[in-house]
């Protein structure tokens, strides 16, 4: 360091504003330079002697300042006061704890919102067998799902077409059950009676039943879905003979629709020929397919036998249904009803025999057997 540079930094040296290296260099220079040593020591002595005495501020000055500040704060324009308030709130809001709490509340709140609103405004939702939401006043029939095909089934609305929803019973998931009877070992004898030529002839005439557009487009390709739809269309239109034939064909061919087709075929047969013919068919379907289709068939069979007055056979079917959770309650009620009916019949029989023994009671007992006569309506 030379004297010129020392002159430039001497004040920094005096007020300790130099870094350590420069300070050391300046001090080394002062050790061997009398001029610079004299300047440095002179300035330091002047600073020490010329230390300005600090005066205490007047008493009350601090208080007056604070009071003035308070008054000034009250006179602040509303926008500045709002700005300060917002700034204060923002200061608190920017704290990590507050930010994390806000994020947590947002996550919880949005989760609650979506959980609450996702299902829609209904308290509960009725769904079809394939999980499709169902309208409130609509009875639906479900085309069974093609085996291993994930696409949802189409739903056709019809007021009376479905034997699967009698008494408003809850629907069960038949998707898996429909697969079980997909490949029957051998078609039932009754189904096998349907000639193949007739099936081919029926297939060519399906265009007439096609209010369902899908049926028209896919029939030529013998699509199982289209064939089933055509049969269902015939059933809905009241062409029960045709529907029965088509359902029987589908059942005989096997596949994903076979079980439901067999059930609908029996239902169509009941419409055409009545319960005396349909009841054994229902029992065949029950025995062949089991599961939910079998339960539905057993219910129909029991209903038929009850209408025919064959209460013991009806009871057998109801007892089978008592093992099915979805039919259990209704089956027990039906059994109780049958028992009551049997009891009534026995009572009537006893009275009739008593009347026969007593000539005076004969007129009174004349109408009793009529009460035990089974209902004749079988369609």
């Amino acid at each position, binding site marked *: 360091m030379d004297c010129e540079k020392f002159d430039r930094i001497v004040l920094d040296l005096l007020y300790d504003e130099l870094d350590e290296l420069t300070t050391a260099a300046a001090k080394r220079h002062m050790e061997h330079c009398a001029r610079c040593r004299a300047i440095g020591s002179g300035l330091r002595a002047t600073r*020490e002697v*010329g*230390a300005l005495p600090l005066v205490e501020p007047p008493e009350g000055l601090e208080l007056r300042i604070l009071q003035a500040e308070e008054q000034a704060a009250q006179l602040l324009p509303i926008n500045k006061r709002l700005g300060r308030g917002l700034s204060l709130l923002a200061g608190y809001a920017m704290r990590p704890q507050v930010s994390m709490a806000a994020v947590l509340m947002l996550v919880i709140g949005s989760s609650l919102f979506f959980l609450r609103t996702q299902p829609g405004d209904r308290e509960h939702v009725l769904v079809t067998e394939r999980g499709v939401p169902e309208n409130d006043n609509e009875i639906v029939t479900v085309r069974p799902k093609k085996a291993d095909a994930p696409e949802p089934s189409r739903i056709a609305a019809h007021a009376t077409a479905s034997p699967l929803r009698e008494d408003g019973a809850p629907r069960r998931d038949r998707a898996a059950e429909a697969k079980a009877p997909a490949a029957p070992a051998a078609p039932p004898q009754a189904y096998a009676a349907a000639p193949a030529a007739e099936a081919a002839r029926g297939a060519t005439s399906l265009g007439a039943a096609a209010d369902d557009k899908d049926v028209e487009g896919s029939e030529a390709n013998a699509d199982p879905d289209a064939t089933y739809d055509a049969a269902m269309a015939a059933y809905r239109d009241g062409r029960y003979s045709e529907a029965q034939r088509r359902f029987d064909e589908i059942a005989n061919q096997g596949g994903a629709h076979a079980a439901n087709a067999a059930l609908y075929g029996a239902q169509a047969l009941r419409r055409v020929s009545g319960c005396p013919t349909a009841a054994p068919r229902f029992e065949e379907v029950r025995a062949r397919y089991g599961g939910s289709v079998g339960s539905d068939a057993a219910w129909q069979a029991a209903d038929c036998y009850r209408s025919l007055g064959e209460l013991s056979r009806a009871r057998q079917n109801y007892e089978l249904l008592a093992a099915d959770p979805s039919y259990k309650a209704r089956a027990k009620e039906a059994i109780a009803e049958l028992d009551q009916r049997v009891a009534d019949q026995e009572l009537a029989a006893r009275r009739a025999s008593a009347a026969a023994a007593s000539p005076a009671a004969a007129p009174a007992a004349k109408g009793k057997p009529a009460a035990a006569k089974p209902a004749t309506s079988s369609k």
Partner: protein
Amino acid sequence: MAAVQGDATDEMLMVRYQRGERKAFVELVRRHNRSIYNFVLRQLRVPSVAEDVTQDVFMRLVQNAAEFKHEARFLTWLYTIARNLCIDQLRKLSHRRHASLDQPARDSADHTGTQLLGDTISDPGPHASAERNALSSEVRSSIVKAVDSLPDDQREVFLLREVASLPFRDIAEITGVSENTVKSRMRYALDRLKDALSDFEEYARALR
């Protein structure tokens, strides 16, 4: 809370005051009203005026609090306000200034509660402190008179350096001149004081 505020920098306190914390402003006043008052007093040399101007400085701080940026140095901002107010006041007083104005300043310097600036900027031992407190009122008057006799630009720099303890870089920012100019003015001020206080230099050497 007080402990926290005691550890907080001036800039942090000012930001808190911007958010509406009055305690932060109280702490700022407590820290700086004494040095501001002394700076203003030595510039204006009238205690009553210095008291009002000191109050005005803090009121300007209140009114312009929203303009303070937290990355700025608080003391630089505060002394810029004080300097501007002093300049305004000096203009008002310039036509009325006469010799008798110096009298109250000397009276103030004689106040029993005064403290030597050297106590705050150097680190003398207890013995030296006791010795320094024993300086006669004549010495104190001479120091005050020597400072008051400095040219305005030199006195301003001297006070900002000695009273406010601001570094030369900040003084340059406040006064609006280069740092070298500030150092030059400071050097001239010290040379003048050296001449004015040459009689007491031997006394100062004796203290070391």
